[in-house]
């Protein structure tokens, strides 16, 4: 089960999806990061409580992906989310601190 930080907000600005960090997430995550629409869909689905199988099913249905392609896209999302410290890892660890952004 993927677990995402609660202190990062997904918002759409003029057609661009952005992940914006609330103050508690500063210093761990980027302040604001644009994401591609398919990653925004995954983020929202995970926030809605869907598990990995349900997310890959959603990706296949919405985008016409094969099961293999959907798994690959989800895997890429997880890699990117981990790199940017958006994941809450097992045991409550949320990744090592990364550079923050001046607000």
């Amino acid at each position, binding site marked *: 089960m993927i677990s995402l930080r609660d202190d990062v*907000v997904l918002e759409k*600005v*003029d057609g661009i999806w*952005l992940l*914006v*960090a*609330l103050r508690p997430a500063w210093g761990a995550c980027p302040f*604001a990061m644009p994401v591609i629409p398919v990653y925004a869909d995954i983020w929202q689905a995970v926030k809605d409580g869907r598990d990995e199988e349900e997310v890959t099913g959603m990706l296949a249905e919405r985008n016409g992906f094969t099961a293999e392609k959907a798994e690959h896209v989800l895997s890429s999302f997880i890699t990117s989310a981990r790199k940017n410290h958006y994941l809450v890892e097992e045991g409550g660890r949320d990744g090592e601190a990364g550079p923050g*952004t001046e*607000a």
Partner: protein
Amino acid sequence: MKYIYYSGCFGGRAVCLGLRHPETAVRFGGFLDTGPLTEGPAGAVCVPEEAFREWERDTGLPGGASAEFNLAVYSTSDALLRQGACIIHAAALYYRGRAWLFAAESGTGKSTQLGNWMRLYPDDASRIMNGDKPVLRVTEKGTVEVCPSPWRGKEGWGDDGLTAPLGGVILLRQGREDRLAKADRFRSAARLLSCFFSRYETEDSIRGICGIEEKILRTVPVWELVNTGGSASTGLIRGAIEKETESDFPQG
């Protein structure tokens, strides 16, 4: 903590400020009513204790009136966000009937560009509206207006009587050459967002900021200026603004 409360007005929006230091009120000038209120109303804006502690830790300076004035920009912007307005980290120039924002982090050349402009074009009726942190407000028509604020920057540049519709935004980036282009939407959306003031403590504040940014991106051009800080870069901006407004000023 004991606070003294004042009624204020920023961009036509009423905000009640609770201040720890009486000297802080002086720095707000005409943006606050002269006398303190006898009681603090619900919803009054105060700089939280935690912000003073962060200030003292980060700057090594005492959390006195200067700190309170500078920190109040975040809480004031959050209060304005609830009324369709906010404060942005940008210098505002009035030219050809519109306000042009030079947005960037501290030390990236906002004041340099304004200084260049006033030196190079002293007679073209342009004026500095605010040197550092103007107020933005969304109008009933969904456009954005730029309004004065008491936070004018180190140079103290500002014209407290001047409000104008936003004409465009120039995102500044230092470089080894001078180059101006329409900003890439994907990247500039995140970059511009980092210029808005807020304590970023609630999802509502982020939604409010994103709402105002959307109005900006949908109604005015956003350029990115890579610049050396020299006169040529300022000329590039002026040329772009004149092209943008040529239908209003057909004879140049």
